[in-house]
């Protein structure tokens, strides 16, 4: 359908000053309109959260941005903590550290069916506990929660439902990971941090690319092609990858739409939440 699209890295190039301006304006207007005092975000030491922290601080001023570092002993990595502190210092935002280990351990103890060996279920608890901390700060300090999910992870469903993806706004959700890397350097995130392998830090040594089974450079071009209705054969041919790889990406993208939406309800009445109750998100 879109044979004219040439899947080379150049298609992912952005007008970075323009994108920075657009996202900055988006954050600023949202905070203003919501009557909030700023934003709170999770600061993991990774590229996505570092970029969102930088964009938020540049847009509304670091004094109105709180970066929460939420480490826990199982995945503790001093490099990540240092990187998070470096971002906080560079962009003048307020950083606070809350060690979530005791909460997690308390949680595990109280679940009768808790299975220590099931790292995914256990890891998801960590992401959701972090969400609770962020929303506590937001409620208490009249701030909004600023998410840092990117488009690659969101399309692949590579996130914890109601966990790391939970936020009031997600300023970089329309940018692929490789685009975020470029935006990160553009806004002043050090190259070393921008090039660091991505990890959700749900268990030790977890790496996004290893788990997804594909490099973001390739994944992003596949997703770009799918976004533009390209056939899997065409994408595979252009990128010189196996068709099965593209089909797997497409299948995963389509199978996790439920993670990106409100819970489904049967249509029973005149207008239904999440189906045809179509209202503006806000009245401003």
């Amino acid at each position: 359908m879109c044979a004219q699209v040439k899947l080379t890295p150049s298609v992912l190039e952005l007008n970075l000053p323009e994108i920075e301006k657009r996202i900055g304006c988006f954050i600023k207007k949202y905070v203003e309109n919501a009557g909030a005092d700023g934003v709170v975000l999770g600061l993991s030491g990774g590229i996505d959260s570092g970029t969102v922290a930088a964009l938020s601080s540049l847009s509304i001023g670091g004094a109105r941005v709180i970066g929460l570092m939420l480490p826990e002993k199982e995945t503790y990595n001093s490099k990540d903590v240092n990187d998070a502190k470096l971002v906080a210092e560079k962009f003048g935002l307020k950083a606070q550290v809350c060690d979530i280990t005791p909460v997690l351990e308390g949680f595990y103890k109280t679940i009768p069916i808790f299975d220590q060996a099931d790292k995914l279920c256990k890891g998801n608890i960590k992401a959701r506990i972090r969400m609770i901390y962020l929303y506590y700060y937001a409620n208490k300090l009249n701030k909004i929660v600023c998410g840092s999910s990117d488009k690659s992870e969101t399309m692949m469903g590579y996130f914890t439902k109601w966990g790391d993806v939970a936020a009031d706004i997600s300023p970089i959700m329309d940018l692929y990971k490789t685009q975020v890397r470029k935006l990160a350097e553009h806004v002043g995130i050090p190259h070393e941090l921008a090039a660091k392998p991505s990890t959700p830090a749900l268990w030790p040594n977890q790496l996004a690319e290893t788990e997804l089974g594909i490099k973001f450079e390739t994944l992003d071009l596949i997703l770009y092609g799918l976004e533009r209705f390209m056939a899997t054969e065409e994408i595979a041919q252009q990128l010189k990858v196996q068709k099965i790889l593209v089909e797997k990406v497409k299948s995963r993208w389509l199978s996790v739409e439920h993670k990106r939406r409100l819970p489904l309800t049967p249509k029973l009445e005149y207008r239904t939440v999440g189906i045809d109750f179509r209202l503006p998100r806000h009245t401003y």
Partner: protein
Amino acid sequence: MKEIIKLALAQISSKRENKKENLQKIEDLTIKAKEQGADLVIFPELSLTGYVLHDQVYELAEVIQGPSTKRIEELAKKTGMHVIFGMPELGEKTKATIFNTAVLVGPTGFIGKFRKMYLPTHSVFEEKRYFRPGYQIAAFNTAIGNIGLFICYDIFFPEICRLTRLKGAELIVCISASPAVRRSYFEILTAARALENTAFLAYVNLVGVQDGLQFWGGSRLVSPIGNLLAKARYDEEDLLICEVDYRDIRPVETFIPTLRDLRPELFDELKKHSETL
């Protein structure tokens, strides 16, 4: 009729679902425009209510001439100004048929309206879900010239602007709510529509953010030869005063005689082929 008129391009951010506040802004800026010598002030598409309305449009739509139109008529009478603005119009013959409408009022009251003909329903747009398309071209003879109206996505269909010109419009006004990702298309098309029709084209866009859509502003006046005569700021509210000198049309019409050279038989072909697309 005046040969030279002053326009005020009122590039505003509308407060969604808040007609009271938007009417106040329209009133304030009309007075300000008058103070700066303007004859006509132009506000963006759906400036009365905001653009992203979804189901709320059913509560916000009003007949023309309903209370909001009447208030702006009073304003026009009081200030001696001509005012163009956008609003969701409730049809008079049914209970829930709504149009996306541009309204022109002047010192003598209501002059006319245009109902958007092409309703974008793709990408982030869902206008056909809520609006009925218009069927009438709009060009009105006024004390400040023959003014034509159309709305936003209509600009992609050259026949709208062409028909407006053929009905006599010399100043064609496009009110818009265009999000930033589409900026380059409008920057090209505003120049093209003016040039191919040898008429002045005033484009007035919304600014602000509504449900993630960032409206880019960039309102402008384009000359009959396609030159940019004045341009408002990107992304921020602005009130741009600019001048239309209708005497500039004649030399352009002789230099680029697109209207003289129209070939009516081609329009039959156009009709035939568009029916069998």
